[in-house]
C-alpha cells in the first residue's frame, strides 16, 4: 500500500477550479486547454502559472504565433494576478515564432526540448498548438508531420518532471486529435451567446485519476481573472450528515413574524423547511418575507435575502434596507441578466456561512428566472431543485416568493411546477366582496404537520401584515366571484356530516 505513488495535487489559484478538477491539478500531469478564440484559454493558463510559479518551481511559457507576445503581455497584465515581479525571476517567456516560420517541426520541437532541458522548469506552457498546425502546412518533405509533432511534444511533455499545458483551439468533436489520448487532463472552454447575454462555460473532459465534477461549469472573467462557479452538489439523503438536519426539522419551529400566521402553520414553520409564498403582484409576498427576516433579526437569527425585484430602498421594503445597513441581514441584489444559478448559489452559500444565517429569502423566483441567462432557463426547474436541496442541506429555513398570475379558473401555485419542491406553501389571492378588493391567504401545505385550512382575510398596514378572521359565509372565493352563503345552508351541511 505505502509503496504506491502519491500524486500531489497543485492548487490552481483559480477560484472554483480545484473543486471541479477533483482537488487540484495532479503534479507532472500533461494537460490540454482547448476552446475557441476569446474563450479565456490564455488567461486561464496565465492565472494558473502566476499562482504556481515559484523560484523552486519556475515556469516556462512558450508563445507560438497565436497571439503577438507584446499584445499578450499588454492585456494579461490588466489582471490582478499578473505579478511583474515573477517575470524573469520565476516565469520566463520564450517566443518560438522564428522556429515556426521555417515550417520545420523538428526545429520547433528541438528548441522546446533545449529550453526545457536548460532550465528544468516545474511548469511548461505551450500557447498555442493550433497556430503551430496552421503554420506548418507548407513544411518540407521528410520532416515531422503535424500529427507526429503534437504526438512527440505530448510524449516529451509527459516525460519531463513538469506539470505541462498545451493550449489550443478546439478541434472537431467527430475527429478527436490523437494528442487527446496522450493527455492526462483535458479542459474545454466555451462561450455561448444567446440573445443579448453571454455565458462562459468550461468542462473537464478528462482528468486522470480524479473524480471530476461532470458537466458544464460556468465561469466569469473579471479584473481578478477567472472565477469558476461549480454546479452545486446535492448531498444524498443517506449517511449521517443529513440526520441532524432531519431531526432539527421536526423539533423546532421558526416564527414567521406575522401575528396569527404561526398558528395557521401549526406552530410556526418547521426549521429547515423551504416555503413558497405564491400570489399575484402586490398581494404582499415581499412584505411577508420581510417580516420573516425581521423576526429572525429580533431573535438573533441572522438572515440573507436574494433580491431580484425591488431595490431595497423602495417604500415597503424599507426595513430590509435598514437590516442590511445594520449588518443583520445579508443582501445579494442583482439585476444582471446573464447569471447562472450556480453562481448565485455559490454567493448565497458563502454569505450564509459568513453571516451564520438561519433564514434565507429569495424574492422572487420570477425575478430569478429573468436574471438567469436564457441558456439556463431550460434547466431552471432542475437548478431550482438543486438550490433548494443545497439550502436544506445547510439547515437554513427558506422563504421563496413567486409571482402568480391571478387566474380564477385554475388553482396554481407557481409557474415552474416548483410547488412540489417546497415543504410548505402559502397562497395569497385577491377576492371581491361587496365591490371591494380584499386580500386573503391560506396555508396550502406544511409537509408532515397539521395546519390550518382556513382562508383568512388580511390587510397590509404600515405595521405589516394583519391577519383577520376567516372569510366565512362565502363560497367560490377562489374563483374571484364570492357569493354569500345563507347561514341556514351551512348549518344544514354541518348537520349532515
Amino acid at each position: 500500500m505505502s509503496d504506491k505513488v502519491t500524486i500531489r495535487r497543485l492548487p490552481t489559484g483559480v477560484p472554483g477550479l480545484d473543486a471541479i478538477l477533483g482537488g487540484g491539478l495532479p503534479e507532472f500531469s500533461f494537460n490540454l486547454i482547448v476552446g475557441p478564440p476569446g474563450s479565456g484559454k490564455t488567461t486561464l493558463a496565465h492565472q494558473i502559472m502566476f499562482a504556481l510559479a515559484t523560484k523552486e518551481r519556475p515556469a516556462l511559457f512558450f508563445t507560438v504565433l497565436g497571439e503577438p507576445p507584446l499584445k499578450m503581455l499588454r492585456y494579461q497584465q490588466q489582471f490582478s494576478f499578473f505579478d511583474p515581479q515573477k517575470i524573469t525571476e520565476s516565469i520566463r517567456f520564450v517566443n518560438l515564432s522564428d522556429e515556426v516560420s521555417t515550417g520545420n517541426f523538428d526545429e520547433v520541437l528541438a528548441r522546446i526540448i533545449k529550453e526545457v532541458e536548460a532550465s528544468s522548469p516545474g511548469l511548461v506552457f505551450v500557447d498555442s498548438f493550433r497556430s503551430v498546425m496552421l503554420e506548418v502546412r507548407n513544411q518540407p518533405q521528410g520532416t515531422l508531420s503535424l500529427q507526429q509533432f503534437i504526438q512527440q511534444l505530448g510524449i516529451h511533455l509527459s516525460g519531463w518532471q513538469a506539470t505541462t499545458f498545451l493550449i489550443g483551439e478546439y478541434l472537431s468533436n467527430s475527429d478527436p486529435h490523437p494528442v487527446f489520448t496522450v493527455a492526462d487532463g483535458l479542459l474545454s472552454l466555451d462561450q455561448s451567446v444567446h440573445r443579448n447575454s453571454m455565458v462562459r462555460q468550461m468542462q473537464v473532459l478528462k482528468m486522470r485519476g480524479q473524480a471530476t465534477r461532470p458537466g458544464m461549469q460556468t465561469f466569469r472573467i473579471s479584473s481578478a481573472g477567472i472565477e469558476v462557479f461549480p454546479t452545486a452538489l446535492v448531498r444524498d439523503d443517506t449517511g449521517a450528515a443529513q440526520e441532524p438536519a432531519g431531526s432539527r426539522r421536526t423539533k423546532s419551529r421558526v416564527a414567521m413574524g406575522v401575528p396569527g400566521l404561526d398558528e395557521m402553520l401549526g406552530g410556526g414553520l418547521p426549521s429547515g423547511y423551504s416555503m413558497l409564498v405564491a400570489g399575484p403582484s402586490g398581494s404582499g409576498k415581499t412584505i411577508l418575507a420581510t417580516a420573516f427576516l425581521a423576526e429572525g433579526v429580533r431573535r438573533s437569527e441572522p438572515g440573507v435575502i436574494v433580491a431580484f425585484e425591488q431595490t431595497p430602498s423602495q417604500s415597503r421594503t424599507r426595513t430590509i434596507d435598514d437590516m442590511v445597513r445594520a449588518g443583520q441581514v445579508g443582501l445579494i441584489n442583482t439585476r444582471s441578466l446573464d447569471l447562472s444559478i450556480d453562481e448565485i448559489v455559490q454567493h448565497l452559500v458563502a454569505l450564509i456561512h459568513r453571516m451564520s444565517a438561519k433564514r434565507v429569502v429569495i424574492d422572487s423566483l420570477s425575478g430569478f428566472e429573468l436574471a438567469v441567462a436564457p441558456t439556463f432557463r431550460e434547466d431552471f426547474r432542475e437548478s431550482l431543485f438543486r438550490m433548494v436541496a443545497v439550502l436544506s442541506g445547510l439547515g437554513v429555513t427558506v422563504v421563496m416568493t413567486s409571482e402568480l398570475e391571478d387566474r380564477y379558473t385554475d388553482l396554481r401555485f407557481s409557474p415552474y411546477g416548483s410547488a412540489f419542491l417546497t415543504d410548505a406553501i402559502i397562497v395569497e389571492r385577491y377576492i371581491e366582496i361587496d365591490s371591494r378588493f380584499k386580500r386573503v391567504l391560506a396555508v396550502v401545505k406544511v409537509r408532515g404537520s397539521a395546519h390550518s385550512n382556513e382562508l383568512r382575510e388580511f390587510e397590509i398596514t404600515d405595521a405589516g401584515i394583519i391577519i383577520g378572521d376567516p372569510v366565512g359565509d362565502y363560497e367560490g372565493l377562489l374563483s374571484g366571484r364570492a357569493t354569500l352563503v345563507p347561514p341556514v345552508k351551512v348549518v344544514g351541511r354541518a348537520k349532515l356530516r
Partner: protein
Amino acid sequence: MATGESNLFRESIRTALAQRAGIPDSEATANATAATWRLVAAQLAPVIGARGLEVLFERALRTTSAAFPWLAVASGSGAALLPGVAERLACQRPAEAAEASYTLFSTFTELLMTLIGESLTTRLLAPVWASPSLSSVQESAL
C-alpha cells in the same frame, strides 16, 4: 511616481551608454550603441519575438529621426538597420552622436513601456542598464 521612475530610467540609459563608449568619441558611441542594442535584443527577443522587436526598433528609429534627421536610414528593416545607424552616428560630432544614441534608446524604452507597462519593461531590461560593463551582461544573458 511613474514619471520619477521614467527619469531614473533615462539617467541609467545615459550613464550606461557613456560608460560603454568610454571616451567622448563618435566611433566609440557608434560601437556602444550597436553593442547595447544587441543586449536589448538578447533580453527581449525570446519574450516578444524577433519580429516584434524589429517592429519596435523601426518605430523608435523613425521617431528619433524626427529630431535627428541625419539618423534616418532608408534601406533595410529591423536588425539590418543597425549598421547604417552606427555608420551615421560615427560621422557626427561626439556630443550630437551621444545625444542621438541616448534618444533612440529612451524612445525605444518608452515605446515598450506604453505597450507592456513600466514595471515589466524595467524588469525585462534591467540587466541591460544595470551593468555598464558589456561582458558581465553578455554572460548573464546567456
